[in-house]
């Protein structure tokens, strides 16, 4: 395989078919994709087009049934075993018997960080997602959006080089979303992380990404990969610039083409 040395995710003719009792479901087919170190890649596409499935293949939570994929030159399994990535699920998946604080500390406990460092990191990441003061609450005492933010904090708490985020900001209002978008960009800029980000919001995708992957369903395939021409430095106001609107338009067109129902 001749992935470039800086390639973080490299997929070749990737395919995945689920066997269900009423026939096979082709969730992914013929996906070719190259994510380079430092990329911020957004995945956008209709519901059920395989975005989550693709992230899950990267994370070694699902095995591809065709093609090949490497993460940092390793198989997904090796990558997972070397704790290459942090994953934010589409649902918060907090453990109900742990307080928010303890939930965020979970990966740190598992990776064996010291007690004081754990506390420090938990405090910092809860702050980042604006949840300080809720650390001692249990998940069911929090609103949906707050739970989602807690799960983001959990993924950020340990410093993985690759972040896989499945609609992390879906349940958040525009203001918090803008805020977190900015924070995420800052984090990304400062740390040279690679981020794979599933979203349904076109402006969000355009605002955040260096590369936008547009997908279409049944079977899930990549219909377009748009390289952003925006600078890495992105104030919120960038969203009014014509370049921005142009990219957004291109994404919307790609998206629309993939949809089966259009009046």
């Amino acid at each position, binding site marked *: 395989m001749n992935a470039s040395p800086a390639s973080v995710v490299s997929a070749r003719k990737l395919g995945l078919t689920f066997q269900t009792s009423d026939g096979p479901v082709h969730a992914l087919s013929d996906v070719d994709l190259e994510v380079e170190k430092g990329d911020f890649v957004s995945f956008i596409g209709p519901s059920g087009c395989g975005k989550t499935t693709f992230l899950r293949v990267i*994370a*070694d*939570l699902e095995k591809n049934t065709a093609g090949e994929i490497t993460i940092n030159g390793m198989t997904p399994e090796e990558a*997972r*075993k*070397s*704790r290459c*990535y*942090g*994953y934010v*699920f589409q*649902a918060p*998946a907090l*453990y*109900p*018997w*742990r*307080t928010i604080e303890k939930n965020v500390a*979970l*990966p740190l*406990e*598992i*990776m064996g960080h010291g007690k004081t460092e754990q506390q420090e990191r938990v405090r910092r990441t809860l702050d980042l997602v604006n949840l300080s003061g809720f650390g001692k609450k*249990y998940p*069911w005492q929090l609103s949906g959006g707050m739970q989602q933010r807690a799960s983001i904090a959990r993924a950020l708490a340990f410093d993985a080089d690759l972040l896989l985020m499945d609609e992390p900001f879906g349940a958040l209002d525009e203001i918090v979303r803008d805020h977190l978008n900015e924070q995420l960009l800052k984090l990304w800029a400062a740390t040279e992380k690679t981020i794979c980000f599933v979203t349904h919001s076109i402006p969000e995708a355009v605002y955040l990404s260096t590369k936008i992957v547009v997908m279409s369903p049944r079977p899930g395939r990549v219909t377009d990969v748009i390289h952003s021409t925006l600078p890495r430095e992105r104030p919120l106001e960038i969203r009014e610039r014509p370049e921005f609107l142009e990219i957004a338009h291109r994404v919307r067109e790609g998206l629309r083409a993939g949809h089966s129902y259009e009046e």
Partner: protein
Amino acid sequence: MRSETFASRIGPVLTIVATIIVIWYAAAVWMNAPFQRDLDRRGDVTSTTMEFIGKTLSQPKPIVPAPHQVAQNVFENTFLRKVTSNRSLVYHSWVTLSSTLAGFAFGTLLGVLIAVGIVHVKALDRSLMPWIIASQTVPILAIAPMVVVVLAAINVTGLIPKALISTYLSFFPVAVGMVKGLRSPDIIQLELMRTYNASRWQTFWKLRVPASMPFLFTSMKVAVAASLVGAIVAELPTGAAAGIGSKLLAGSYYSQTIDMWAALIAGSLLAAMLVTLVGIGARLIDRRMGVRSA
């Protein structure tokens, strides 16, 4: 609801107990009447209905002893005897309780260990379960004497054989419940652990164990009751020297039904106490785990 008062908890219990006692008296009269009639006929006694009812409730060896007979017996054998006397129910209960607790502890431990093995080792999952099940269909009363005989032959006597038989009965509910419980975490919760490349050990402690708690405690309630049954059964072949089982057996040799019922009541109270204790344990754990009060 915390506002639940003591009275609102105890009231229903008392009502139900009262109902049961009334039914019990009726049953006692009804079940004891035929024998009393025979007795009167052989003794050529005639009596009024009230007298007759009185007699059915005061037979020395009735088929169904009247509640007051049992109560009196329990009272005498609990409070009026030295606790070290072998006629004291407290003494017998204690003997049984000690082997029950030992058996319950072993049984829970063994059940959990087996469940852990089954959940983690595929070879065990595939091969062990059917045989554990088969083992439970072996009637204990049939093997209990053999176990005791064999153990006695290698000089293991006293508490341990009884505790072992009680273990044999109690590990099964725990094993079955824990296998279910340890497998109860949502897929997404397990996948989270996978993304951290958590070791099996970590996944076990941080996810499977907490998730299995409701199952563990439900099975432990069944198991503690089973341990008690096991401890009682195991007392028979040990020469039935002491314990609730020996009381029951001795009562049954001589048709001393009142003694038997008293021992049964003692056993039941013991069981209720143990089950309640496990329940309290469950509640404490629940609170520590921040479970939402329904």
